[in-house]
């Protein structure tokens, strides 16, 4: 019998294949608005938030690889990039902790 984590990774794969469903929701999560959305809501962007969006330029903003909005395929690829990135960081942390122990 394969070990449990094997089946859990399979389950994760199924969930990943379904991630484009996450694009069905149009609005941002409450409180997670972009400057543009705040401007529409309030008529202004709070002073200290102005310019904050510029302090970091994410390579894949809003899970889109090109253009302003993510397509279902881009969203799926973003999920795979994300899984790869978090797994890599996890393994690096585990490696680092393990080396320390010896």
């Amino acid at each position: 019998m394969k070990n449990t984590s094997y089946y859990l990774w399979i389950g994760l794969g199924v969930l990943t294949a379904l991630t484009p469903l996450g694009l069905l929701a149009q609005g941002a999560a409450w409180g997670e608005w972009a400057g543009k959305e705040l401007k529409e809501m309030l008529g202004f962007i709070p002073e200290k938030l102005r310019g904050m969006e510029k302090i970091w330029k994410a390579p894949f903003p809003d899970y889109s690889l090109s253009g302003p909005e993510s397509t279902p395929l881009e969203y799926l690829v973003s999920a795979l990039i994300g899984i790869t990135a978090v797994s890599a960081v996890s393994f690096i942390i585990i490696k680092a902790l393990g080396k320390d122990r010896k």
Partner: protein
Amino acid sequence: MSPLWLIAGRLLKSVLASRHVPFLALGAAFSFVIQMFNIPLPGGTSGHLVGSTLIAIVIGPWAAFIAVSITIVIQAILFGDGGITAIAANSFNIAFAMPFSGYYLFRLLSMRTPLDSTWTIFSAVIAAYISLNIAALLVGLELGIQPLIAHAPDGRPLYFPFSLQVSVPAMLLWHLLFLGFIEAILTGLVIAYLRKADPSLLGILHGKQAKA
């Protein structure tokens, strides 16, 4: 937040059994994927699940703290989601408060029952529902307190614009009515599966063994 990450790293070193190693990556990946399912909510907003309590029940709260923190950092750096300036707050809410409250609630509820009883599943379900709402409440409090402590002389908010009376109900309403139940069901399903497939996995972390 950084002292907490250091403590977590140190503790993790001592509790990391070799068979749990892949689970840190699995936990982080699960957290990442589950948060991508934006669920449309009335009023033009959306919500998402978190999965932190489920992760904590399986790999322990300190490992869950690290796993979900990794996800939050990657979301911010690669995808501009959550945001660099919100990493600490987001980590406190869904990587720390949620998995710890959920995990200990689960332990408390399932304390007197053997792992192979159905009550284990219900304990996880209840813990997931409550801990998600604790996290949502924290988000509401942290956002709503901002106009109170940071406003211009003319009363204009400098950071977050809505008050506690708006932010707390906004965050809690759909988590209490809807998202909490989805989070709970998902958690219950996975725990039910693990209880059947590999009860030792749950047993090791809880210091008790399922009956053979």
